[in-house]
C-alpha cells in the first residue's frame, strides 16, 4: 500500500522559507526519516527557497511525501516565475554567485539530497529534490 501526502507552500517573503522547511521537516518526521536527513532536506529547501525570494521574488514549494511497504520518500518541487538562471552549469559550480552569497547554495543543495533536477528558462525555474530511504 502506498500512502501519499501533498502540500503546497506559497513563497512570498523570508517567513515562508521558514514555513516551507519546517513543514518538510515535520512531514519527514511523520513518515520516519531520521533527524540528520530532516536537517539535510530542510537545509536544501532553505537554500533554494531563499534563492526564489532573493532572485525571483515569489514562487511555490510543493512537498510530496510517500510511504510504501519498502520505502519512504520525499519529493520537493520548487518553482518560480522569475528571470531564470542564465547559466545553469555555472550556477551549479561551487563558489559561483551573482548575488554576493557564498555560492554554495545550489551545488550544496544538490549534494544534500539523493536526486536533484533543475530546469530554468525566463519565466519558469523548476527544481526537483528527492530523498528516499528503506522503510523500516
Amino acid at each position: 500500500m502506498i500512502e501519499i501526502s501533498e502540500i503546497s507552500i506559497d513563497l512570498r517573503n523570508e517567513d515562508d522559507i521558514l514555513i516551507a522547511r519546517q513543514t518538510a521537516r515535520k512531514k519527514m518526521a511523520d513518515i520516519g526519516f531520521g533527524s540528520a536527513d530532516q536537517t539535510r532536506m530542510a537545509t536544501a529547501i532553505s537554500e533554494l527557497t531563499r534563492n526564489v525570494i532573493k532572485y525571483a521574488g515569489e514562487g511555490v514549494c510543493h512537498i510530496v511525501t510517500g510511504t510504501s511497504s519498502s520505502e519512504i520518500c520525499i519529493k520537493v518541487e520548487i518553482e518560480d516565475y522569475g528571470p531564470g538562471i542564465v547559466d545553469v552549469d555555472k550556477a551549479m559550480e561551487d563558489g559561483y554567485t551573482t548575488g554576493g552569497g557564498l555560492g554554495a547554495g545550489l551545488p550544496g543543495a544538490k549534494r544534500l539530497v539523493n536526486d536533484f533536477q533543475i530546469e530554468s528558462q525566463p519565466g519558469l525555474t523548476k527544481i526537483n529534490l528527492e530523498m528516499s530511504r528503506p522503510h523500516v
Partner: protein
Amino acid sequence: MVNENVSSDNVENVDIAKDVLNQLPCMVMAVDLDFNILFLNNTGCEWMGDDFENVEGKKCYDFVQSSHCRTDNCRVKQAMKNDRKYVWRNEITTGGKTFPIEYTASPLRDKDGNIVGGVEYVIDITERVKIEEEVQEHSRTIMELSTPVIKLWEGIVILPLVGVIDTMRAQQIIENLLSSIVENEATVAILDVTGVPMIDTSVAQHILKTVSAGKMLGAEIIITGFSPNVAQTLVTLGVDLSDIITCGSLKDGVSKAFTLVGRKLV
C-alpha cells in the same frame, strides 16, 4: 424517452450548481483560453459593480486589475498551461476598490477532458491580512528582544542565539555583538548557536562576516554549540568554517575563552 429524462436532469443540476455558486460570498469566475469571461457569480458582479450580461464574453482584466493581470504570473494562465491548481495571494482593484485577496485557479475542462479555460475562486482576505500583520509585528518584537549580549568576565562577552536567524536579525546580531565588544573592551566573544535549529549558507555567511568584523575590533570570536546534524550539513554544503574557532559545547567554549584571556578555569 430515457435520454430526455437524463438531459432534463442535467439541466436541473446545472441550474442548482449555478444557484449555489451565486449564493457564495466570494467571487467565482470562469474564463476561456483567451481570458474572455464565460461565467461570473453574483458576488463577482457585485465586486465589479456590473451585471453579468455586461461582462460576459469580455476580457477579465478589463474588469479586475492586479499585478498578475496580463503577465505570465497570472495563476489562471499557469493553471491552464501547467494543468495544475494554484492558490495565491494578491491585491486586486475592481469596482473602484482595492483589497487583498486569495485566489484559487484551476484549469477548466470540457467533457473530453481537454483544457478549455480556467476557473478562479477569489476570497476577500482583508481581515486575515490585518491579523497576520499584527502577529508578524509581535514576532518581530520578540526577535529583537532575544539577542542580548552578556558580559561573562572581564574581556569576555557571550551572545546566546535562539531561534531562526534571518537577514534582518543577522544584521542586528552583528551590530549588537560588535558594539558590546567595544563597550566591554572584550578580547573574546562567544557566539553560541545551540538554540539555532538550522544553519544554511546565508546564516553561515552572516557568521563569517561577524567573525571577520570582530577580528577587526581586536576580538577573537568563538562559535559554540553546532549540533552534529548542523555540522554534517554545513560540510556537505561546502561551507568552510576552518578559519574560525569552534567548540562543540558552550562549556568548552567558555574554557577556551578563559585560556585566550590568560585565565584558567579551576
